[in-house]
């Protein structure tokens, strides 16, 4: 039967995967003030770039991951320069529709490049190491962890920490937070909001690209809809944490990740409903605390 603690561990791993995507989405949401529906495609692209590096070119996985980070980051810059500069004053709804168009476009490009057949990273299989066998009452706290799990959690946390340092220590990072706080004041203060926006796209893309790599490592298979399939959960994490707050997104990602997994312990709820469970938590939190858990704070 299910090992209860194992579910929590699985949740942490899944939470780590959506963590990077959530931070990136939240940054764009906060600073650009719109929901980027193409974010799922960023993830997919990150996964496929990793595939291209690791499988097609035979590079080490971390080099492939770095490629995903850089490539999707660069794509973010490209999108911002070509498409988004015209839309600096557009309403959120225009931007939302725009990103839906972008999502369809990117997914078609991914299909044209890599086809519809699923691809596999072919990472070596590994049996999870057993830790902490035993149980207390009905709670079985035995867990198994693989080095991939650890790598995923580690990498996600390293990048999250890096993002935190960037946002709090660098001039550009603080400018991003300032712009998220108050766009017009940022302009008044002489902040080059155009550049800040471009950097935000780059960072958001780069984090999503790496998130895509983690997703590919976890699932093992790649397909053009993979990012879109989890983007709703990413949105749930972002909203749960409070839109525009990357720290909230971190909390949100882990809560959603763990809650989803643990939800299978509820009797009578099929495993298929765990995505629904993520949304129900989100809505419950919104009703109780409409600003999200972080209350709009950074």
């Amino acid at each position, binding site marked *: *039967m299910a090992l209860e603690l194992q579910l929590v561990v699985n949740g942490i791993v899944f939470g780590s995967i959506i963590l990077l995507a959530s931070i990136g989405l939240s940054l764009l949401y906060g600073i650009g003030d719109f929901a980027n529906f193409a974010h799922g495609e960023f993830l997919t692209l990150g996964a496929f770039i990793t595939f291209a590096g690791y499988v097609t070119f035979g590079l080490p996985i971390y080099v492939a991951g770095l490629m995903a980070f850089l490539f999707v980051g660069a794509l973010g810059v490209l999108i911002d320069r070509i498409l988004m500069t015209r839309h600096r004053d557009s309403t959120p709804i225009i931007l939302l529709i725009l990103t839906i168009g972008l999502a369809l476009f990117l997914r078609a490009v991914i299909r044209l490049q890599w086809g519809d057949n699923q691809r596999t990273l072919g990472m070596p*299989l590994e049996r999870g190491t057993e830790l902490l066998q035993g149980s207390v009452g009905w709670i079985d706290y035995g867990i198994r962890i693989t080095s991939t799990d650890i790598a995923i959690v580690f990498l996600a946390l390293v990048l999250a920490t890096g993002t935190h340092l960037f946002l709090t220590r660098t001039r550009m990072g603080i400018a991003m937070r300032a712009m998220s706080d108050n766009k017009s004041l940022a302009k008044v203060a002489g902040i080059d909001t155009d550049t800040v926006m471009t950097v935000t796209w780059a960072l958001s893309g780069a984090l999503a690209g790496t998130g895509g790599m983690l997703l590919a490592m*976890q699932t093992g*298979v790649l397909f053009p809809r993979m990012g879109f399939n989890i983007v709703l959960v990413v949105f749930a994490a972002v909203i749960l944490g409070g839109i525009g707050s990357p720290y909230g997104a971190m909390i949100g990602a882990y809560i959603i990740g763990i809650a989803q997994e643990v939800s*299978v312990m509820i009797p009578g709820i099929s495993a298929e409903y765990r995505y629904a469970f993520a949304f129900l938590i989100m809505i419950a939190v919104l009703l109780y605390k409409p600003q999200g858990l972080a209350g709009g704070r950074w």
Partner: protein
Amino acid sequence: MMTDNDPNADDSSMNRRPILKTVAAGGATAVLAGCIGGGDGGDGGNGDGNDGSSDGDDGSSDSGGGGATYDVGLVNPYSGDLAPFADRNDRGSDLALSEINNESVAGGKINKITADSETTSNAGVSASQKLVNQEGVDVLTGPCSSGVAVSIAESVTIPNEITHIMINSTAPGITDLEDNGYVLRSCPSDAFQGQALAQVVSDNDISSVSLIVVNNDYGQGLADAFQKRYKELGNTVETTIPAEQGRSSYSAQLNEADNPNSEGIVFIVYPQSFQTMIREAYQMGIQENYEIFGAESMVSDEVEQNVDPVAINGMKGTNPSPPIESEVYQTFAEEFQNEYDRQPTVWAAYAYDAYMMLGLAIHSAGEYSSDAVANAIYEISRPEGTEVSSIAEGKSELDAGNAINYQGASGNVNLDENGDPSGSYQHWEVIDGTFEMQGFVDTGQ
């Protein structure tokens, strides 16, 4: 639509078959005409009404003998969830078409026109409307998923009296469609495989299992058939766990399947999800404790190439038997390999057979129209004729006035009165990471 309400459709079809055979020997056309006539009174009018578009074709095929073109539609999931199947259907059908059009049938060539079903009924119906009404095809093939197939059959092909050959739609429910004989399949119903799989699991002395099932028409249909037979054999299904395709993790499903009362886990999912599942199952140490079984959907290059053998070695399951040892299949596989530089899947074989049967049926009928194909396709596949496996053989036998029995790459493709080929299944075991066929399953029926 399920008018038959026959709770035991499989058995009844078994019972009825000998009768059909007997009558068919006397005159298959009469039986089929009867079948079609059974729908509504407008039989005579059908031919006329239908031929608004195909008259031109008939004319050219009759007169020319050299340059006629027979438009056949293929609704294929080029996008959407089942997109990976589209290329298989294209490869299999193109391979058949190159042979058909080399030889020419009834003095003409088959022209395949494709349209995207997007794996949804809304788009699939639009796509087939375009093929049937805009392009004027007389025969429609595809699409992939059974749900879309039924929508198209009910909304487009049956009302338009278009012969509809399904290539990958294996849902048992399709057998019972009230189709006036227009709906045929080149793939067997999963009702048969469910029985075979139940037999294999039971024969391995596994008396209780957890099922992980992709929750679509394919998975549910197969799981139902499995469950029914498995219980008849005196075993128990502990839980049936639905799993949607395309998820990034199935650990929750696997945890649920990890049930102390189960001795085995049966996967009825597509390769894509299976690769994720088996990876997680291995990490969780699940196959240490359970015997693992799988349906035919596992048997694929993807799984062989991408899954580490240690994770799947010893796994067992069933596969509709392309008679791998048979010459027909060997030739098919060889040509396929030459053409596409890869091994064919069973799905490519079904697509290949659908088009081969179509080609032979056109030649046998001597004309191209929906009704002519629907009738002739039974004739060229029935067991009484000379066995043939290529267009050239078939043509020479037919031209000599002999009845033929097409032997397909996917099996003997003898269509029953519901337009279904009977399935025969091999059981396989994964040895050193490859699916090794172990011989045919005797379902005892």
